[in-house]
């Protein structure tokens, strides 16, 4: 599963940051996941606690917050933006000459530590 690898990766990043901050305990991690990212929030939530339990040093009881951000596409023909969820075809003019502007990213926004 894609999400398990992502979870391990996030955990090792956050563990590193916790080390740099004198081994603090991490209470929560907030992620920003784009609407059309290949990471499915629900699956990530499903593996989160298990992954923290098994693969982390500083995230033993760490809460996961996910903020889903909108995906935006731009149409070269009519020069307008629209929600990527509408599809490849521009809903304003019907052109397929469109590209994704944002919405496929996964980011660690912030963490809370004690």
């Amino acid at each position, binding site marked *: *599963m*894609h999400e*398990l*690898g*992502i979870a*391990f*990766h*996030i955990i*090792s*990043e956050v563990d590193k*940051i916790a080390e740099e*901050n004198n081994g603090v305990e991490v*209470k929560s991690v907030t992620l920003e996941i784009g609407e059309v990212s*290949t990471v499915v929030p629900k699956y990530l939530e499903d593996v989160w606690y298990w992954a923290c339990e098994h693969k982390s040093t500083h995230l033993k009881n760490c809460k996961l917050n996910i903020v889903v951000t909108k995906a935006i596409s731009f149409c070269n023909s009519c020069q307008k933006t629209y929600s990527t969820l509408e599809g490849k075809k521009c809903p304003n003019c019907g052109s397929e000459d469109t590209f994704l502007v944002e919405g496929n*990213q*996964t*980011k*660690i*926004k*912030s*963490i*809370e*530590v*004690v």
Partner: protein
Amino acid sequence: MSEVRTILLNRSIADSIEEEAEELRQELKKRKIFLLNVMSSPGSGKTTTLIRLVNLLKDKYRIAIMEADIDSDVDAITVARETGVKSIQLHTGGMCHLDGSMTRQGLEALDGEYDFVILENIGNLVCPAEFDTGASMNMVILSVPEGSDKPLKYPLMFEKSDLVLINKIDTLEYFDFDYNIVENFIFNRNKNAVIFKISAKNGTGVEEVSKHLSSLIDKWRS
């Protein structure tokens, strides 16, 4: 009790995975180790092809193989038996891909001096393409029974692979596989791609691939 404080990070996961892989690649370059990442759908012939390639190259290079699988040891055992080179199984525990940190763990587990290390990635045309393993080169195998539309449906895999093997050409007469379509599409996506047609079963074309690989390995290590 101490107070909760917030640390703002704003770090992209993709970027950090990329950085980790790039670091590994540079380190391997310094250590003169060529790492080949082999990807394909399940059953396209990764293991069969690798056994032939290793047997052609093992007198020239110190070779080791890492077999990534969700849970079985079958491929690692087969490769060890058929080639005699060091082979280990990486259990991914349900994961659909490998990244730089998992590859690094595998390399540490190999324990020894090698010139050429092969990573047989998990059978999957989607996820492995999205994660850089830190390899010196990506190779994808497409087999004739899968159909000529695969590069069209899984473009990222073909964009990321500079070496493409069309395998199972001994079965061409039974399938409507159109090589020209495949070739056109691959070159559209990746103009640096080098394509070979082989049959891992009877050995057709495999020697050409081994010569090509050998020149890539020598270049990387020089």
